[in-house]
């Protein structure tokens, strides 16, 4: 897969959640170019063109990042902080999609510049609706800055 043309980047380690998310996005016909990164360290490599993503075109950023918080190696909030404090990645819309309703996470997430904070519901129907709304909103209505 060409990592240079990515509409949605999903950083998620839980395969089940990932499958459900992808299903929801597909069902709603969003996302042709979806890229998934299953751990924090790799996500960092992607964003800053290091390691495995050394040759990534840094000018081509994903239209949206769906970020889980609980990740192996580097956690979601750390990744968020790095993205939002780097000029190259600062403008990428980041939606936090997580199981946690912990207030501290929510507050911290927004503080670090998360564009939205969404809790994954247990109820599958609700989950489908949430993801559809999320994808529609960010991909269709928001024009990312050039």
């Amino acid at each position, binding site marked *: 897969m060409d990592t240079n043309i990515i509409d949605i980047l999903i950083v998620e380690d*839980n395969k*089940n*959640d990932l*499958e*459900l998310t992808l*299903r929801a996005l597909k069902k709603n016909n969003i996302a042709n170019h979806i890229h998934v990164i299953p751990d924090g360290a790799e996500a960092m490599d992607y964003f800053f063109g290091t390691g495995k993503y050394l040759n990534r075109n840094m000018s081509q950023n994903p239209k949206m990042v769906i970020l889980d*918080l*609980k990740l192996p190696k580097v956690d979601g909030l750390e990744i968020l902080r790095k993205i939002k404090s780097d000029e190259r990645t600062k403008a990428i819309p980041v939606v936090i999609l*997580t*199981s*946690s*309703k*912990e*207030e501290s996470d929510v507050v911290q997430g927004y503080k670090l510049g998360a564009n939205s904070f969404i809790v*994954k*519901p*247990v*109820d*599958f*129907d609700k*989950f489908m609706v949430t993801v559809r709304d999320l994808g529609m909103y960010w991909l269709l209505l928001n024009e990312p800055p050039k």
Partner: protein
Amino acid sequence: MNNKTHLVILVILFSFACYTHAQTNQGNDTLSGKIIRITIASEPDYPPFCLVDKNGKADGFSIELFKAIAKEEHIVTTIKFGTWVKIKQDLAEGKINALPLVGRTPEREALYDFTFPYLTLHGGVFVREGTKGINSIADLKDKTVIVMKGDNAEEFVRRNNIAKTIITTHTFAAAFRLLAAGSYDAVITQRVLGIRLLKDLNIDGIIPLNIPMDNFRQDFCIAVKKGDTALLAKLNEGLSVVIANGTYDKIHLKWFGPDIKERYTYNNLIKLLIYILIPIIALLLLIAVYTLRKLVKSRTKRLNEEILEHKKTLNALHSRQILLTEMEKVSKVGGWVHDVVTNKVTLTDGVYAIFGISPLEMDPKENDFGLDYLIAEDKTLFNLALSQTIATGEPFDLELQLNSADGTLKWVRTSGHAEYNNGKIVSIFGNVIDISRQREVESNLRKLTGDLESLVNERTAELNEKVEKLNKSQQAMLYMVEDLNRVTSELKQERQNLETANKELEAFSYSVSHDLRAPLRAMDGFTRILQEDYASKLDDEGKRLLNIVSDNAKKMGHLIDDLLKFSRLSRKELTFSEINMYDLANDVYQQSCSDKDKGKIEFRLHNIPPAFGDSSMMRQVWVNLISNAIKFSSHKAKQLIEIGCNTEGSQNHYYIKDNGDGFDMLYINKLFGVFQRLHAESDFEGTGVGLAIVQRIILRMNGRVWAEGKVDEGATFYFVLPKANK
């Protein structure tokens, strides 16, 4: 024979009488020293006794004599003039005080008092020169004589019937002029006066006859009014003085010249003795008396002065003696002298006072200092010291004890030093001081010092004890502080542990919220996928079973959510403010209740007072309680929900009452427990966390919560909160 001769004779003759007289008259001198003012009168024309000088002033022998007397006796005299008859009358009537020249006659003695005579004159018969036939007084019997009216001569001739006819004139001058002119036979007057008058009048041819006139002798005196004895005494005294001091003789010489030569016959001498000497003797006697009196007075005065001086000295000495004695008494000291030569001892009163005896009680014998009063060993000590001083001259100073007469034991201090005369010790002077009081004070002082020391020791001991106690207390305190520190550090440790535990709990909650929900999501999600993608391959039973899986997954999700919510309550920080409970309860009710439910619910919300607490938490309380009330009364055809508040003291008791299924009070303990349910899940949905959350919130707001209920009759939930602080 002059007055001095008289004086000598008289002094010899009467000297024996003088002393007694002087003594009796002493102190009779009442008028001396005072100035007396008197008025006298004089005839202008009775030379040489009384006359007027060229300046119109009174003069003459009598006047001058009177002045001398007056001067001597401090008498101020005013002299008037008048005819003899007039002035005689004036004196008798008291208009004047004295007449300087009055012949003393029996007739006059009735009217006046007289000084002793200062001049005696004899009468004389004056005839024209060549007259014959008058050789004696008897020869005048058939003659006519001229006299001055009121004069002694008139009195004399009338008294003795001397002449056949008596012619009177106002003055003797007139009488002599008549006689010189050839009228009458003779003039009788004082012989001296007559001669002088004739000379003054320049009448020749008139001579005095040498006929003695024994019965016509005149003693001339100063006269005062009858009874004026004070003035009389003064004049007598003055007269004596002028005679005694020679003034009389000087005046006499001035007016009469050298003595008229007289022949002193035996008869005359007798007469002289009788008529002159006796008065003179009397006079001299008086003078002597006076002089002696003066002498005695002055001697007495001097003697008195000497006596006074002596007395003064004696008094001073006595005062000093008293002072010394008093001083000795007060200061309890005494003095002694030991005469080395005679061995005689003299003690002052102070020494006796120290012995407690009077000076009369002990007569110091030889070498006796009252040593018997001393206690035996001190007696020896004193004797030794004294003999050493006598031998060497070295002074001594001893403190000794004696038993005084009244039995008190006294401490005395005595010192002695030698007195030298010509290099030899003649006496030992010493003093004795009663130092009992001093000793007593010293002993008291020593005792006091001792007491003080023991007191100080006692106090010091007490203080030390206290200090020790304090030290112990301090030690105890230190231990306590140590304990406290230990406890504090333990507490700190505990706190740290607690914090760690809290963190672990947080981590746990976090895990729960993330990790526990993920599988559930997977269960529900994949069940749905199965249902969606494989619906054609599943029969109805298969679909039902999948639904059960899905429902339980969702339920598990709710349980986890509630559990997290509950655990978050303990950690969430509260913000206290005043909460409008009425509005809040009403709002919650409106949101918790569907329109359908509202139709069958009677919601009674009383005007409940505001509360003080965290408003978002409070909202949660109302959500849970109201939704419970709705839920548990949902089986009733007509639901009743009542919210109210009772105020008790400083607290508000809020309540919410429903008419639902209620509960059995038997299980009241389980009502507020987590995941505790009193109803079957099939009857009422729920996780069993709602009331646990209510209780947790109310407790955190310093309140409490409880409930009352009865099966099928509804339940009432109470919660108490402090009144809102206004």
